């Protein structure tokens, strides 16, 4: 038995009593505004240790699950509204808004399901934030937005929402293969004072309680995610950063190569699930 497993079992013994009161409704079906969302499916073939991939939604308690089923109750939609305002706002030296060139955000239907993806002109793996900022600086002559802050997360959520219910399908070979392999390596590398890897929690122990939290597979198909904990949207890289801090590791840089690679690898572990943006978690 490895060290991490032992810690988990000790945690389970200490907090075991919680199990009965904080159960998730694991068999519930997610339907958002009448649209069915696939929250469980066969794991993509590249995954060796998991047969079924599950959305983080299936691990949340009933009340939290309900928030995501009704757009009026989903607080993430408030930020989507802010994203719409920003979408239409004329900024920068060229006097343009996103709408000037892209019309309606629905132009980006499907884009969320293939992100992150290779950008040939930049010769790099791009996240949604890169597209937003590239258009701001190159097309609008405006300042780039800061990753992980409300304006950026809101516009990323607005674009993501257009693909809600569509199947996640990021590419893992070709130009992005090296990054994907790097991401996979990071996912399984132990780091920090607690000497744990993402996999120790999100692969070896999903389904168990870690203190008061029900461990999920660490999927990102619902990002940006509205968290009850901080009452705002949380970006993918901000979530990675939080998890690294929890294991007392020095987080990689938001927007840096490590998190980009990890984003691609983690996204590919969710291939087959529906995009859920904006999801609600605790």
């Amino acid at each position, binding site marked *: 038995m490895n060290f991490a497993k032992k810690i988990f079992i000790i945690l389970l013994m200490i907090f075991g009593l919680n199990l009965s009161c904080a159960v998730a409704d694991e068999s519930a079906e997610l339907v958002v505004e009448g649209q069915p969302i696939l929250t469980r499916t066969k794991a993509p073939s590249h995954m060796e240790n998991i047969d079924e991939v599950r959305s983080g939604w299936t691990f949340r308690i009933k009340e939290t699950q309900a928030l995501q089923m009704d757009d*009026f*109750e989903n*607080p993430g939609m*408030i930020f989507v*509204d*802010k994203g719409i305002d920003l979408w239409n706002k004329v900024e920068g030296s060229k006097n343009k808004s996103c709408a000037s060139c892209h019309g309606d955000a629905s132009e980006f239907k499907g884009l969320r399901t293939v992100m992150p993806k290779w950008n040939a002109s930049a010769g790099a793996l791009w996240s949604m934030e890169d597209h937003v900022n590239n258009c701001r600086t190159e097309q609008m002559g405006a300042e780039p937005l800061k990753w992980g802050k409300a304006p950026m997360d809101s516009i990323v959520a607005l674009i993501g929402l257009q693909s809600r219910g569509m199947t996640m399908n990021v590419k893992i070979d070709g130009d992005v293969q090296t990054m994907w392999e790097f991401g996979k390596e990071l996912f399984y590398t132990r780091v920090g004072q607690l000497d744990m890897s993402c996999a120790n929690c999100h692969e070896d122990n999903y389904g168990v309680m870690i203190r008061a939290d029900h461990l999920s597979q660490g999927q990102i198909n619902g990002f940006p995610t509205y968290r009850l904990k901080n*009452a705002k949207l949380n970006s993918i890289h901000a979530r990675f950063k939080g998890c690294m801090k929890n294991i007392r590791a020095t987080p990689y840089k938001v927007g840096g190569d490590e998190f980009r690679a990890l984003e691609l690898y983690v996204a590919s572990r969710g291939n087959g699930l529906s995009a859920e943006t904006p999801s609600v978690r605790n």
Partner: protein
Amino acid sequence: MAKGVKPRIKVPKQASAGEAITIKTLISHKMETGLRKDADGNKIPQSIINRFTCDFNGSNVVDFDMKAGISVNPYFQFEAVVPESGEFKFTWYDDDGSVYEKTKKITVS
């Protein structure tokens, strides 16, 4: 004026006479309590939605009096019995004097 204020309502379009319908309302508002201080130690003045009302065809349905300490983006959900077709009117009153209004028609069969 408070920034980013946006009222939202959810009311069914139709109901049968005498049916209790669920109404959901939410206004995005920062609900500054008046107790916080800025980086220089000066008090940030209170700025909240202090009252919310709902009327149906001119008669009052609910009237909420709100104080500091209510969380951001106040959300109210309540039931109303609709006797006839008509119009709901929702009104939010801001400390800064702004008044936000929304109306919604409902058909009763």
